[in-house]
């Protein structure tokens, strides 16, 4: 089961157990909101074409394309938070990223995509 579907099945608290007035008293709760579930199209990288220019890294509005400090190459796409906006594919100067229908993948992650 992917982390997204786990998130969907998480038992939610009732009205007596949450802080009043919609206040958020925990920190880093945005991490729990796996916005990847909003995605309708998925970016797929062709590593043979990629020149490691990093354009996609800088443009990604969700910081979902990571660079590893030890291995400064373009990392995989964090599909937990990639909303599928397609900016990376749009700015890629060598057309190494293509956007594909999410439905063809089911719940599977691609081999270039980083598991979190």
């Amino acid at each position, binding site marked *: 089961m992917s982390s997204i579907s786990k998130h969907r099945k998480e038992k939610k608290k009732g009205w007596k157990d949450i802080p*009043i*007035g919609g206040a*958020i008293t925990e920190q880093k709760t945005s991490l729990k909101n796996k916005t990847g579930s909003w995605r309708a199209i998925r970016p797929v990288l062709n590593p043979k074409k990629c020149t490691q220019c990093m354009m996609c890294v800088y443009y990604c509005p969700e910081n979902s394309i990571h660079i590893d400090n030890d291995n400064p190459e373009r990392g995989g796409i964090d599909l937990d938070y990639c909303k599928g906006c397609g900016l990376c594919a749009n700015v890629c100067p060598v057309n190494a990223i293509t956007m594909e229908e999410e439905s063809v993948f089911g719940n599977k992650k691609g081999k270039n995509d980083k598991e979190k």
Partner: protein
Amino acid sequence: MTKKNSKSKTEFVKPSFAKHYETTKPLSGAYAVSEAMRQIDPDVVAAYPITPQTPIVERFSQFVADGKVKTEFVPVESEHSAMSAVVGASAAGARAMTATSSVGLALMFEVVNAASGMRLPIVMPVVNRALSSPINIHCDHSDTMACRDAGWIQLYSENPQEAYEHTILAIRLAEHKDIQLPVMIAQDGFITSHAVENVSLLKDKVVRKFIGKRKPIHSLLLSKKPVTFGALELPDYFFETKRQQQYAMEMALKHYDNIAKELSELTGNNYPMFEQYRLGDAEAALIALNSSAGTIKKVVDEMRKEGKKVGLLKIRLFRPFNYSQVSTLLRKIPNIGVLDRSYSFGANPPVYSEILSALPSSKSNVFSFVYGLGGRELYESQIRETFEKLLKGKIKKGINHIGLRE
């Protein structure tokens, strides 16, 4: 002061309570509220002038300038900003107040809902004035009635003395740990806000002891317990947050009498949710809010002298609304007239609608009267005429009008 009911409230203080009072002096309703605000000494007041609310904040800003309060006063550019500033201050943990009227309340409506949704105990005196259009500066209740579903507790005040005491009461009601809701205190524009009556003011230290210090449940300024206010809530949690608001209103209904009793022990006056005036054996009763209740009391006294069994039910706490209590009080009265100073266009007027829901299977005849829109006067003779009609029970169903030219 010849009115029997007003003796203890304005001119004379009951001797056993005199030690809690500072003075009795002539004040308008607006000035009486500004005196309450001075004694409350809120941390933040943000406000924008609007007739007939202006004298409240005008006089309060004088207190700020004279150093009589420690309040941070924010003169903003609109009511929307006034309520926004007060919401921010209250979320930070401050005791925050503002005041407004009519279209000012309408302009802040978006943030009025945010205040109750974020459960911020803001206290706001509202001086009732008609909503536009046509533009009109005089009294009716269309402004506060438009906010009756906004999640604010609503207290209605008959005279300057009540407006003063309600403002103090409102702080405790709003900040109660189980309630945490904003409160608006209504008084009639010009009729109450600008008319001068004797008002007995409590001692500053008595008020400060009664209201105590605000203990916020969450505060933006507590860096060890960081908190986010007003964040997005999607369909998965929004409903639960709204259910909490409904619960808070139920808690307000539960705790109101105890808090009111505590204030009664200081002032010697009572603050029942519904004030009964010679209602016990009444054959005809009128139900009213705010200043009209005072005029009706005078007519009731006169008609009682003539042996006519008439009475009044004055609604003080309109939100939350205690249906079971009002039903108990009215059950045995054959003819009831509900006075509304606003329409709910195309439907039953607001107060009438509540009374009807409270008396679903009652034998009482409940009639609706709309009166006084845009400051149209309500004369004693008209009240007497309405009582006479009620005693005879010959009134048409649907909405009747008092003082309207056909």
